Structure formats: C-alpha cells, structure tokens
C-alpha cells in the first residue's frame, strides 16, 4: 500500500510541469509571507519599548515579557479560553456533523432554511448574536450566565464551520461507499464508524480546528454570554489594550501563543491522517 501510493505520487509529480510547480511554490511563498510578516511585527513589537506600537522600534526591551510572566490574570484567561474552545468545538463537531448528514442525505421540510440558520450567528454583528443568546439563556431558559453559557454560545456559531466542511465533503463523497459497505453486511453504526467517518476525517479535522480558532478568538458574543467570574483570553487582551500602562503585553501573549500552538496543531494533523484510510482512490 505504501509503495503503491509512493509510486503514484512520483508519477503524478512528473505530470505537473516544472514551471507550474515553481509558480505554485512561489505563490505559496508569497502567501506564507503575507501570513507571517504581520506576526513577525507582533513578535518585534513585544520587545518594542514604545507603549503605542510605534515603528520602527527606537529601543528594545524585555520588560513586557517580564511583566507577562508575573501576570496571573492571563493564565486564568488562557485556561478558560482553552476549556471553552475545546468544549465548544466538541459540541460543534457532533451537532454540525449530524446536521450535515441530515441535510445532505435526507429530504425534509425546512431543509433549505437550515443553511441560513447555521450561518446566521457569524454573519450578524456579534452584538446581535450576543444579546440574542443572553436573552435565550436568561429570559427563555432561566439560566444564569457562566462557563456553560459561554460554551453553548460559542458552539452556536461554531456549528456552521463544521457543517459547511462536512456538507462539502458529503456532496463529493456520495453514498456508493456506504451502500457497498451495507451490502457487504455491516450495519449502520459499523458503516459510519469504519467507512463514512474515516473518509470525512480531514474535513472534520479542518472544521474542528477552524471552529476552535473561531471560539478562541471571540470577543463580543463572549462578553454577553460569560458570567461575572469568567474572563476569556480575547477579553483579557481587549481590556489590556485599554490599559495605558502596559498595552504591549498583549503582543507577548500573542507571540507566545503562536509559538506554543505549532506543536499541538502538528500533532493533531498526524493523529488524523494516521487513523484515516489515507488512500487516494
């Protein structure tokens, strides 16, 4: 199996001309530069002695890094953000996938409206979604806000990320594999576990990672759905941008997050492709 795919890859590489490969590689380079130049600015600004991010830095200092190490508020905020993000992503994966299945495999009243419904939370200004969710929790369901409401709120707008990716994959996938599996004797659950899910793995992983990113970075809806004791990282950052004395500390936090997040993302990639069937049919 391994040898076969290897052969396929090298066969294919010869089909794309050298010029095309060069062009694509340079476009990739341009894209990566676009992505990383601003992040480099963030890192440099974390050493910038200016409290207003002015450029070029007249003086470099490590005092913001020192302050960040001492800051206990950021650690709590990071903890809440990770918990909320992972929980919201998990919920979004389950709900988004089941919705995607329902919409692409079945015909029912209201099907067409679902696409609109799932995308509303992110297409409306955060304030509208935030207040609507707060009303839903406090006035309709009689709950008080706290971590649970943050998670549910985030899951609400994360569903669409998983849903869209899953629907796109399901359209491409078709039902033939599923039918073949069931013809061969597997029941619904087994088919889902061994045939459908692995084929959707990369779409779901993409959706999950993006959903986590969306949740991790969300400010406005969180303000209205988080209870008094909960402060997520984006809110902590927002507040610090309003504190005249130590704004650059947010650059330190962002830079740190970028560095330390490379590892888990890379690992999650390895995990998914190891478990998927991996084949290009």
């Amino acid at each position, binding site marked *: 199996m391994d040898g076969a795919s290897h052969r396929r890859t090298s066969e294919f590489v010869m089909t794309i001309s050298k010029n095309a490969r060069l062009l694509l590689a340079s476009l990739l380079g341009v894209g990566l530069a676009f992505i990383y130049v601003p992040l480099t600015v963030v890192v440099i600004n974390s050493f910038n002695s200016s409290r207003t991010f002015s450029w070029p830095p007249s003086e470099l200092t490590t005092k913001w890094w020192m302050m960040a190490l*001492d800051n*206990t508020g950021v650690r709590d905020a990071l903890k809440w953000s990770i918990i909320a993000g992972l929980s919201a992503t998990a919920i979004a994966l389950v709900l988004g996938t089941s919705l995607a299945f329902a919409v692409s495999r079945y015909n029912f009243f209201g099907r067409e409206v679902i696409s609109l419904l799932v995308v509303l939370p992110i297409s409306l200004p955060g304030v509208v979604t935030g207040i609507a969710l707060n009303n839903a929790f*406090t006035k309709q369901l009689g709950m008080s806000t706290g971590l649970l409401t943050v998670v549910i709120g985030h899951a609400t707008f994360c569903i669409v990320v998983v849903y869209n990716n899953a629907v796109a994959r399901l359209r491409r996938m078709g039902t033939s594999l599923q039918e073949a599996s069931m013809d061969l004797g597997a029941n619904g659950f087994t088919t889902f576990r061994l045939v459908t899910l692995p084929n959707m793995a990369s779409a779901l992983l993409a959706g999950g990672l993006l959903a986590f990113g969306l949740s991790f970075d969300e400010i406005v809806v969180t303000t209205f759905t988080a209870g*008094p004791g909960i402060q997520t990282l984006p809110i902590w950052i927002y507040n610090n941008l309003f504190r*005249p004395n130590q704004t650059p500390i947010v650059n330190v936090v962002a830079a740190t997050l970028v560095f330390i997040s490379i590892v888990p993302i890379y690992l999650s990639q390895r995990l998914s492709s190891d478990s998927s069937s991996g084949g290009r049919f």
Partner: protein
Amino acid sequence: MIKMEVQMHNKRLFSQIAVASVAALILAGCSSSNDAASSSGVPDVPMMETLGEGEGQVNLVAWAGYVENGSTDKNVDWVTGFEKETGCKVNVKNGATSDDMVALMKTGEYDVVSASGDASLRLIYGGDVAPVNTDLISNYADIFENLKQQQWNSVDGVSYGVPHGRGANLLSYRTDIVKPAPTSWASVFDVNSPYKGKITAYDSPIYIADAALYLMATQPDLGIKYPYALDQKQFDAAIEVLKAQKPLIGEYWGDYLKHVASLKSGGTVLGTTWQVNINLAKSEGTKVEGIKPVEGSTGWSDTWMISSKAKNPNCAYMWMNHIASPAANAGVAEWFGEAPSNAKSCDLTADKNHCATFHAADDAYWEDVYYWNTPTETCLDGRTDVKCLPYAEWVKAWSSLRNS
C-alpha cells in the same frame, strides 16, 4: 427540466422561509416582553435604608483599569485588601463602551456599575439602578462638593451614585507642527484649516455636545445654554457644524491607543484628547500639549451606581464606599489617569504632582467644563416650552453623519 427543478426549489425555499419566519414571530410574541411603556417620572425603585452583613461576593461592571487586584501588576491593587476586610469577593466584567455597560446592567446579573454620564440617566430612567443612600457611605463626605448632586448623577435631589473621578476633553496639538499654538475650538472646526485630514474627534454621539459648545460661543443667538439640552433647531445647527468638519477629520478615535499612536506618528496633529493620552504621548517623546480652549470644554465624571436588581446589595455598598476612600481613589486615579473625586486622595498619590496635573482641587478650572450627561426629551436646561432631542436621536444622527 433543470429550470423547473430550480423553480421548484425556489418555491419550496420561499415557503420554508415563510413558515420559519411566522413560527419565529409567534415564538417572539410568546416570549417575555420588555418592561411596560412610558412613565412620566423616574421609576420608583426603593433605596436601601440600613447596611447589613456582606453576602460574600459582589459583581461589578467597570471600565478597564478601575478594578485592579494585582493580577495586572503586583503593585496595583486596591481589591485584595477590600476582599479580606469585607469578605466580599470581587468579580468584575469590563465593559468596552457605555452601551455595553447599559446592556449588561439590564440583564440584572450585576450589582454595581461605573457609569459614564452618557449612560447614567439612561440607567436611572430605565429603572435599572436604585437611588444611593449616601448616609451609608462614610467616604461620601470627602467627595469634592462640585461633583455631588449633579445633573447626571442625581434627579430631584435624590442621589443615584458615588462620583468616581473626573477628566476634561482637552484640545491636543503637536507643538512642533501646529503653529501658532491654538487657543480655541475653532481650530478643529475651521473649514479652511491648514491641517485638513490630520484632525481628530472623539468617536461617540456625545461629541455632538462639543459642536454645541462651540456654537454657544460662535452663534449665541441660537440660545444654547447647556450643550446637552438641544431642541431640533439647535441640534440641526450642531450637526451642520459636524458635517462641515468631516472632511477635516483623518480618524475618529474611541480607544486611546489608536489616538496616541496617531499623535506620535503625525497622522493626527490636532483634536480632542484626554490628559492621560497627553501624558502617554509625552512619555514616548512626542512634542504635544493639551489645553482647555477659551470656550471651555466637555468633560466626564463617572459614577458608581447600584443595580435595582442587585443580588448583593450590602457588598455593593461596601465596594462603593471603598472605591471612594482616599487610598483606593488615589490608586485608581493615578493608574487610570484622571482627577480623583475624594479631596483627601491628593495627599496619597505616588506622583505628588498628580492632582495638580489633573486639576483635581482647582474648582475654577471645572467652571466651564460641561460634564457628559444623557440628553433627554425633557430639556436638561429647564426649558419647558420646547422638546429637546433624547440621546437615541443623537445616536441615530451620529450614525447618519458618520456614513453620509
């Protein structure tokens, strides 16, 4: 064939949307409605009479920097001591704007809010805050007299909060670029200004009052007595001033970071600012000054108010007393960058010049500062023959101005 299919799809889609909308509307009708309609006076909210035992916690809505517990900077902490002394654990939610704060208070989940003048009357008339029994607040006695019982923090002699501090909206200018040094707000409203495109203004509907203040001096026949009490004619004139000003503006600012960065780089050379921004810009080496022009200026004084639905009223009162105490008030005034409200705080600031820089005890300075207030339909200047425009109209006009 395909066309028919598409048409069928569209018909189905339309009917589904129609049904969903109707269902939603019905649901909406069934869910709890908002408070009952208008009352002609202030809602009757009871005032606390006696202080009891602390409830163990207090939930605050405050501006960033007002409630520091050492997690930002070990030395900046006026909360942990309070928590130890009273047993009230402090949970704070920072609001980004007055609008956020009003919305958060309306949820009923918070006990205390540090309301700016453009929010305070909204909260009072909306029934979201209760009158404050100042007898229960021992530090209230030391608050500067000209902050007590003002139009934005009291109604008919009833006090609705504890003053936090104050600041004026100054005119900033780059001393190395703007010559000669400006002395009047005319420099930001002059359509022939040589600094066109490099002027800034505060990005909030309350800035309309600044235009009104300017008209008080330049068009006295309009009869504007108080910049927050504008009838339709006066309001329209103020909007005209702002429309004429728009081409001069490079950026409107709402957060200090953008503003100070702009001052430093020279993208902005002239416009409304706060003393704290001037200090920050100067510390970065920018040649800038902030002055109160001859016409006077608008300003702000935040008020700590207690929710009408407060779940922890005793701790709430304890907090309001604490933040108004000389030491805490000095701490927050220095950290945030404003004049303290407690007269005794001036002896306790680390920077001995703090009160002088911020004119804390200079009563004469504040004579021509018009603190932010919430415009209401009943004219705030006492006129009864006309209707003034309420803040909702200010906001709508500002949205329109910003996009026209």
